Structure formats: structure tokens, C-alpha cells
């Protein structure tokens, strides 16, 4: 699927990154703990999180991720949006909770990668 599919499946609002919606993504991870993202993520291109601070965007950037989905209706602030724009990253926002959002994406073909 591509990022546009992620947006559709999650009934998500696009915050920024319109130019990258056609990017293909195959794996995702869901976490509010950036320590875990840094330690365990390998090729997951999508991060689902309820954590809203600038380090969420920085962490995703370090891991070369292309899209962050904020769950539970969380809103990133202007600094986060500005940094994501500079990095060419897509930010999405959905009202679904984490478990439901992950389940919907799994059901539509997105996977989580190998076990640790």
C-alpha cells in the first residue's frame, strides 16, 4: 500500500506531506516509547504513536521513516509540523485508538516486521 492508502484506511486527516502520499510502505510500528522505536525498528516506514513532542519527529527522521500517524486524535504543534516539512515527512492524524489503527492497517496488508 502507499501512504494515501494508510490515510484512507484510517480515515485520517492530512497534516503535511501531500507530495509524498504516493510513497510505497510495507511495514509499520506502533509505540509511544521512542526508546523502543530507536532500539527495535528496522525497515518500518510508518510510525503510529500517541506521543506528541518534537522528538517523535526526530526519532522517525533518524529511522528514515516516511510517515507518522498520530492516534487518538492527537495534534502535533507548529514546530513538529515545520520539522516534518523540512524532512519531507508525511504527518497524519486519526481519531482511532492505537490498537484499532494498527488492526485496520494489518487487515489491509501492512505488516510489522520480524519479532525482536
Amino acid at each position, binding site marked *: 500500500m502507499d501512504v494515501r492508502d494508510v490515510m484512507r484506511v484510517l480515515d485520517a486527516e492530512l497534516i503535511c506531506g501531500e507530495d509524498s502520499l504516493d510513497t510505497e510502505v510495507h511495514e509499520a510500528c506502533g509505540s509511544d*516509547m521512542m526508546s523502543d522505536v530507536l532500539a527495535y525498528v528496522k525497515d518500518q516506514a510508518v510510525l503510529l504513536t500517541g506521543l506528541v513532542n518534537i*522528538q517523535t519527529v526526530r526519532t522517525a527522521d533518524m529511522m528514515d521513516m516516511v510517515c507518522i500517524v498520530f492516534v487518538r486524535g492527537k495534534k502535533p504543534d507548529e514546530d513538529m509540523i515545520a520539522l516534518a516539512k523540512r524532512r519531507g515527512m508525511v504527518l497524519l492524524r486519526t481519531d482511532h485508538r492505537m490498537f484499532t489503527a494498527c488492526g485496520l492497517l494489518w487487515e489491509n496488508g501492512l505488516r510489522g516486521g520480524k519479532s525482536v
Partner: protein
Amino acid sequence: MSGLKWTFEVDGNDFTRAGEASSSLKKKLRALGVSPDIIRRVSIALYEGEINMVIHANGGTIDVEMTPERIDMVLKDTGKGIPDIEQAMQAGWSTAADEVRSLGFGAGMGLPNMKKNTDEMRIESTVGVGTTVYMTIYLS
């Protein structure tokens, strides 16, 4: 042989700026044509170290040197120091405050993850004086 050198100051009073040095180095390495796998390992190791410097040690200085063979990173702070380095290296061990955990860090994964992403890592620390972390990633 002397290589390319960069120095970054890490502001310990501003959590929002943590990661700027790693991000800046990542851009430089990309412009130099370093392989994506190496860039990613450098970025993760340095970012973890930078976060540690901000949440545990009120910032410090990062010196990076790159030669055709290797990238050396030295992270130096004058924070409270690590009393037991072996214990600090254990996955899950953390002295981070709850406030840090609420920001998404402090799971006790930083130092083990820095070791995992580097070829060599050494920590020198004196309680009350500070900590210096030496990390090396080979380019071939």
C-alpha cells in the same frame, strides 16, 4: 591520517533541541555519499547519546572525525557521572525521571542501543566529574 572533523555543542537546558547535532551530522554524511546503512547506525547511536546528554548531564560537546576507514564520535559531558557502568549497560536499567519517560525516553535502552549500532564503544565516567563516550563505526 587526519580526517574531516566536526564539533557540536549540545544544549542541556532545551529538550526540544536534542537531536539537532545528530540531524546535522546525518545531512553532512549524506552529502558526502556515505552509505545509508552507515548513516543510519551513526544517526541512531549519536541521537541516543545526545538524548542521554540532555536528560542526564545538562548537555556537553560532541566531536566527530571521519577518515576513509572510520567514523569516530566522542561525547563528553560534565554531568553527575555513572556510578556503575556495567549496570547502566544492561537493557532496561534506567535512572531517568518519570518526566523523561512521559517524553518517550528513559526505557533503559539508550546505551545498549548505542553499543548495538557501533563497532566499538567505550565509556569513561567519574561520579561528580562527568562522562565521556567513545564510539567508532568502520566504513568498510
